């Protein structure tokens, strides 16, 4: 099973022949990802990494049966590339770009209404099901197969938590980065829902940051709908109000946006909360022990 992507996923890369796409396509294949080709407009008919290159996503889908796309298209053209993927029938679209204009995302989210494609990102490290499928830019060697589902806004903080768990012998069922922008294709709740339904996931880690209502909304959803335990962390305890901390979405605009307010709310809703970013791994281990889940 796992969440959103697995060993049966047929992956294409949009912006296939670019430097980062090339590097991460190779890395993805090295862990067993079934990459079936790529799209670079104008280079259709050629081959790259021994795989076919197409001019359009529609052609790529028709020729390869691809159902997942890793979108490495630069921000100005990103939203268009995402619509192209959805239009072509891709089921899971993952977009890495950092800097997609927000009005493009507003239109894109409207475009998705009534369509069943899952969009992950933008501004995300992507998604990985260890040993089966990587669609993104994360360092795949730290992701070992296990029982923990992890979902985060930040990429590097996802790596941090994963490495802490790895050091304690805890592996990952699937890791999903929802991205650091104010408007994400997929929110925390959608991913929690998928983890709750996934038999390979036994516990979930949710890593948020300052700004926006998503973390608390997700914690509330978890309390009402989940049987699996959830561990939460929110970065930005030391962040000053009104300053955007790198991510477009990470800004304290009101009292509810602060890291402590969000973690207090999570705790009140029954989540396990790691108050220190260096303690995420050990908090997961403690939660597993308390819940009788064998690591």
């Amino acid at each position: 099973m796992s969440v959103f992507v697995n060993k049966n996923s047929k992956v294409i890369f949009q912006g296939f022949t670019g430097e980062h796409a090339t590097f991460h396509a190779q890395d993805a294949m090295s862990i067993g990802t079934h990459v079936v080709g790529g799209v670079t407009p104008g280079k259709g008919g050629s081959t790259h990494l021994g795989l076919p290159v197409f001019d359009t996503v529609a052609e790529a889908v028709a020729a390869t049966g691809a159902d997942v796309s890793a979108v490495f298209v630069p921000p100005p053209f990103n939203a268009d590339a995402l619509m192209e993927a959805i239009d072509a029938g891709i089921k899971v679209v993952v977009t890495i770009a950092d800097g997609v204009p927000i009005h493009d995302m507003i239109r894109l989210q409207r475009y998705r209404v009534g369509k069943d494609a899952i969009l992950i990102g933008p501004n995300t490290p992507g998604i990985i099901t260890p040993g089966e499928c990587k669609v993104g830019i994360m360092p795949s060697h730290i992701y070992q197969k296990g029982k923990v589902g992890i979902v985060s806004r930040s990429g590097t903080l996802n790596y941090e938590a994963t490495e802490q768990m790895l050091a304690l012998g805890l592996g990952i069922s699937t890791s999903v980065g929802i991205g650091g922008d104010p408007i994400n294709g997929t929110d925390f709740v959608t991913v929690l829902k998928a983890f709750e339904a996934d038999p390979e996931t036994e516990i979930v880690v949710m890593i948020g940051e300052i700004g926006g209502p998503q973390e608390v909304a997700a914690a509330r959803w978890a309390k009402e709908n989940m049987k699996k335990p959830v561990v939460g962390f929110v970065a930005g305890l030391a962040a000053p109000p009104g300053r955007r901390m790198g991510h477009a979405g990470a800004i304290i605009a009101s009292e509810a946006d602060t890291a402590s307010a969000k973690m207090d709310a999570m705790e009140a809703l029954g989540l396990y909360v790691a108050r220190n970013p260096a303690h995420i791994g050990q908090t997961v281990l403690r939660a597993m022990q308390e819940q009788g889940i064998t690591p």
Partner: protein
Amino acid sequence: MNIHEYQAKELLKSYGVPTPIGGVAYSDAQAAQVAEEIGGERWVVKAQIHAGGRGKAGGVKVVDTIEAVRKTTDSLIGTHLVTHQTGPEGSVVQRVWIEQASQIKKEYYLGLVIDRGTQRITIIASSEGGMDIEEVAKATPEKIIKEVVDPAIGLRDFQCRKVATAIGLKGKLMPQAVKLIKSLYRCLRDRDALQAEINPLAVVTLGEEEKLMVLDAKFNFDDNALYRQKAITEMRDLAEEDPKEVEASGHGLNYIALDGNIGCIVNGAGLAMASLDAITLHGGRPANFLDVGGGASPEKVTNACRIVLEDPNVKAILVNIFAGINRCDWIALGLIQACNALQIKVPLIVRLAGTNVEEGRKILAESGLKFITAENLDAAAAKAVAIVKG
């Protein structure tokens, strides 16, 4: 990116939104000339800085002679205006906006924001204008009107009529309100703005007539869309921004100064925030937030070190890199390059993990330079705090 009030009013005017007749002035003589040209009997002289709270800070004055316009401008230009939003140093007033004083009958609030919950543009309006809208929302939430716009359909007339009616803009004022709200929406969408705030939107009397008019306006634009907004980009006022943050962004670095003594160089905003948190939880104080981003070259790392070290309070630097799209070997080369080029005197605590970590650690170990290495985030933060505390 933010702009000044006068720029916001000129922008709105180009969308057919009524604003008072006025002009910008950079000197007292120019201010007197502007007042002469626009005519009238009373004028408002408004200091132009990005921060809010200008009125309470003495940056907005109503005067009734040309000589008073001149004197007021003279007293404002060059001063550091301190408001609740500027910080203790204040912002230097470089220019003033002079406009005809309006006969205000009633003030309203009108804002357009991108709501993160609905992921759509949302109109926020209130009959309680001229006040802090957050305060109104807290004290009297029923006086805040919200209307969400479907991006595929755009803002419809009936939605504007709903908003106008709800805040009490009736009769001849209603069609004016509809036109104004639609123009503001068009402006926000066409110009890639994240937020537009009109406070106050006022009903003013011109002789017998009543007219809706924008008396103050604030815009915030999407930095990620500036590549396609040339006219907006030209409005950027670098004097309003922190020079170090501007310099850092020129090198593709995201830097925010804080008031502690442990400099931070991290990749990724989330890990950067978490590093500040870890330092704080160990009892230390971070000197800055710095995200080197993805694909950091040795040059970028050198620039990051230089910018962090320009802060004289920095007693140690914590480098925390968890490479995904980055490469630890490049980061290591950058640190060595920085040590040699900048003759760094403060201790460097380095934690490397992720892509090419072995190569990175090897490069540091063989460099002959004194790096204090740490295996994980907790150890790195603990070491940095211990060193600074001596």
